[in-house]
């Protein structure tokens, strides 16, 4: 279990899948189903591989991705 979370905002995502392609660790996978807006929203299937490099959030043209910042575990009490 990872101690952070990736969120893809379905209301903002337009389904370009730049994140799916450019994530260095291939964290995302293109969804096989269309959501209610007709978009193949990417799914962070391999969240455990994520290094929080934030490239996906920087490249997402629709500001739809949030990757939690690294949290120092000592402070996380």
């Amino acid at each position, binding site marked *: 279990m990872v101690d952070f*979370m990736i*969120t893809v*905002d379905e*209301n*903002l995502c*337009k*389904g*370009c*899948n*730049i994140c799916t*392609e*450019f994530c260095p660790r291939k964290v995302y996978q293109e969804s096989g189903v269309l959501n209610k807006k007709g*978009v193949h929203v990417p799914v962070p299937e391999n969240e455990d591989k994520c290094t929080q490099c*934030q*490239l996906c*959030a*920087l*490249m*997402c*043209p*629709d*500001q*739809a*991705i*949030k990757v939690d910042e690294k949290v120092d575990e000592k402070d996380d009490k």
Partner: protein
Amino acid sequence: MDENRENRFMKYLRKDRLPHIFCAGCGNGIVMNTFFNGMEMAEVDFEKVVMVSGIGCSSRIPGYVKCDSLHTTHGRPISFATGIKLANPENEVVVFTGDGDAAAIGGNHLIHGARRNINITVICINNSIYGMTGGQISPTSPKGSYGSTAPYGALERPFKLSEMVKAAGATYVARWTTAQPVQLSNAIKKALKNKGFSFIEVMSQCPTYFGRKNKMRSPIEMLKWMKEESIVKRRADKLSAEELEGKIIVGEFQNKEEPEFSDKVCQLLEAQCTTGKPSSTRSAFEGD
């Protein structure tokens, strides 16, 4: 949406206007991210940012940002920006423009802004086509590329914008592509920190028009193409024109210090002013 689950740049945006009108995979959104990233790195006070834009897809960016913003006329944002900066040099003035806006109809304002070395940052999103009007060729469309007004291929030579703006006197000039968001963010940081005319040329993807008309249908294909064709300036300088055919030269084209225009105006006012009020900012609010 829970604010804790929002993208880190959402705090700068007018959420009531989202999602923006850009097509899926458009580079404009990436440039927005890199701007905020560069702005944070440069430690620019967001409260002082005034965004100015012309007409075109990229010029819609300021309308989504929660700052003072002017969406002006086609090609003329630099003229408005000049007035905003001179009237109050405290304003951190950033111009968002495109290749049609800055290189065609606004070319004269661009070179004169650079010549004055006025402290504004111009971010030109160059997608080599007119997107808003449906895919006509622009002054930066590669020779032979297709657009709705070049159905048999572009006959004209494209402008090399960064080289041109450097020649006109800008003190910071860099070109990157949307496929290099980290380098682009760094260049924007340096541009914002430069006290003078800064020009960032972002080669960007328009999958809807440039891509579709030039056999690159997806934004991913276009990003890969830009990444593969990019060559850093250091290496490019050693190559011949033939070897550079079709390449995108990326990197810094200019980075130097020169006296800045609004500073010179302020110094003139200090020297000439007889009223003891050399800064008459907000003159409009004085009166009966």
